[in-house]
């Protein structure tokens, strides 16, 4: 089978690209290992809601059409939203078509799938940033009898036996699961490394509204002092909830969650934690204040100060004087460990040498080193918002423009 462009992945990013390619009359196909919005259907826990408000899902030719623009989508609502987008843009999606390899061939690529091969000149990798849970190597030293779960396996508290839970990682996933499991009567210990603190609302508006309006989400990859660092900043400690509650470490402490430093090792059945908790919290408090400073400055410049609540700062993160440095995993109190330690993309099917020594794809704003290959939906690809539904549109517009120039033989690939 032949086409001009193969898009791999029918999530919001692949569909946004499909929409842009259609409007440029670029012949293409979207290959999907499962069904449209597959990861949302199969790899998310039951209570999860998007952490961006409903209105903040502007895609090319599509957007939120319901009556609750400031609400946060549940998973079924997210799936329905993306499915409707696929219908709306009549995306040429081939479902249940798993890509097994992508190889260079002649002046393009051969994409082998579970349902035959495709030949194409250009290929867009829209398989997402969260394919494989990153579980640290120390997991191998866990004593027997401890149940371990990744966020992809976790669905709800019924899966988790009575008794203590150690959640490793305090970003959006770790803090949300900590809250849910503590509520469900499982005493949670949360191991906290580097994290990004944020209030749900600030000065009467959603933090995501502020970040969008003040241009923070539009920060470009080529304006960053250290883009490698920017691409590895953890997700913000945020949750989408109808009551718009802030989910920070102070809230978790109040609920009874025990905070420790980063999990530094497991030795003789003891989990060992770093003594750096105080500094990790200081770093996060300072970083949050810098974000709020930027928002305040923008509000003043934009003449919004009269229309919003006055600026204020939040209570610093409370850390007990001597947080625990070790936790016995063998005395029966701890039953479960959840690895909320992030995700990485799966490029195991990519037989083109474009990965660096850390298995990261080498690209310039989504333009991969191999000619005619593009990637979407990974952290800070072109903008801070690149991994968000709301960010796929601008990236798809830019990259489809580059792709069209490439097809036209334009050497500058503007």
């Amino acid at each position: 089978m032949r086409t001009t462009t193969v898009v791999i992945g029918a999530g919001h990013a692949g569909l946004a690209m499909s929409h842009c390619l259609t409007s440029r009359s670029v012949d293409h196909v979207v290959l999907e290992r499962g069904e449209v919005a597959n990861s949302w259907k199969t790899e998310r826990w039951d209570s999860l809601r998007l952490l961006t408000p409903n209105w903040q899902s502007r895609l090319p030719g599509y957007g939120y059409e319901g009556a609750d623009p400031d609400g946060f989508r549940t998973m079924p609502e997210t799936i329905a939203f993306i499915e409707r987008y696929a219908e709306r843009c009549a995306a040429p999606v081939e479902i249940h078509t798993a890509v097994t390899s992508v190889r260079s061939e002649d002046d393009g690529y051969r994409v082998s799938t579970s349902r035959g091969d495709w030949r194409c000149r250009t290929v867009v990798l829209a398989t997402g940033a969260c394919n494989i849970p990153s579980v640290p190597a120390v997991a191998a030293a866990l004593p027997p009898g401890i149940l371990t779960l990744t966020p992809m396996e976790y669905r709800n508290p019924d899966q988790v036996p009575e008794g203590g839970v150690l959640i490793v990682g305090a970003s959006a996933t770790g803090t949300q699961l900590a809250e849910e499991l503590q509520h469900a009567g499982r005493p949670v210990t949360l191991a906290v490394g580097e994290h990004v603190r944020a209030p749900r609302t600030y000065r009467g508006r959603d933090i995501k509204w502020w970040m969008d309006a003040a241009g923070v989400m539009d920060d470009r990859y080529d304006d960053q002092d250290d883009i490698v660092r920017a691409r590895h900043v953890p997700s913000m400690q945020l949750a989408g909830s109808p009551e718009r509650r802030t989910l920070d470490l102070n809230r978790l402490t109040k609920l009874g969650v025990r905070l420790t430093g980063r999990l530094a090792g497991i030795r003789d059945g003891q989990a060992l934690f770093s003594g750096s908790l105080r500094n990790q919290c200081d770093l996060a408090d300072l970083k949050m204040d810098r974000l709020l400073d930027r928002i305040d400055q923008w509000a003043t410049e934009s003449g919004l100060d009269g229309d919003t609540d006055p600026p204020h700062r939040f209570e610093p993160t409370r850390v007990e004087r001597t947080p625990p440095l070790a936790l016995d995993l063998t005395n029966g109190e701890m039953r479960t460990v959840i690895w909320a330690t992030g995700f990485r993309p799966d490029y195991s099917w990519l037989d083109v040498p474009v990965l660096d020594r850390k298995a990261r794809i080498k690209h310039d704003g989504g333009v991969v080193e191999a000619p005619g290959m593009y990637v979407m939906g990974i952290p800070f690809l072109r903008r801070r918002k690149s991994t968000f539904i709301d960010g796929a549109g601008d990236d798809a517009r830019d990259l489809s423009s580059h792709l069209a120039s490439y097809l036209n033989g334009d050497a500058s690939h503007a």
Partner: protein
Amino acid sequence: MATTKNPVDNGVNVEALLGAREALSQTPEAAKFTWRATCEWKKGTQSRSTVEGFYGLGAEQHHKSKFTFDADHPEVFASEDTGATPVEIALAALASCLTAGIAAVAQHRAIQLHRVTATIEGGMDIHGILGMDSDVRNGFDGIKVSYDIDADATPAEIRAVVAQSQKRSAVYDLITNPTNVTVEVK
């Protein structure tokens, strides 16, 4: 950027450090360093440690001169007190590492430092080292570092420099995190 002279000078060559970072991203093997010290027993609890050579950037390296560190125990431990107690050397190492980091981070952020003073203390219950109470660890029960900094920056900027220094400090890392230690006898 290279043409404008940074008026801030903390005596740290940040350009060289950034250049090294760039070079090492191309040749990750050169980033493997081995640090060494030798230690000779004198008498009693006295010893003298020496550092001279180390390995890095793919080759043997040498300090400009040999540095020695005399260690002993104080008279309250019935020793002669001819040098610092080893745990004090550990505290000095942590303070030196954090302070060097503060200078480098401040330089990178164009913050002029005028004075940086650290006071560092580690609490210890010697029931541990005396083997009198197995519930008490040998090492510090906590370390507290207080910085007094005069710099051309806001208090929040200064706190951010100190926090970033901790984040990038080798000694802070090796004190706050476990490290496998292998001791052999020839």
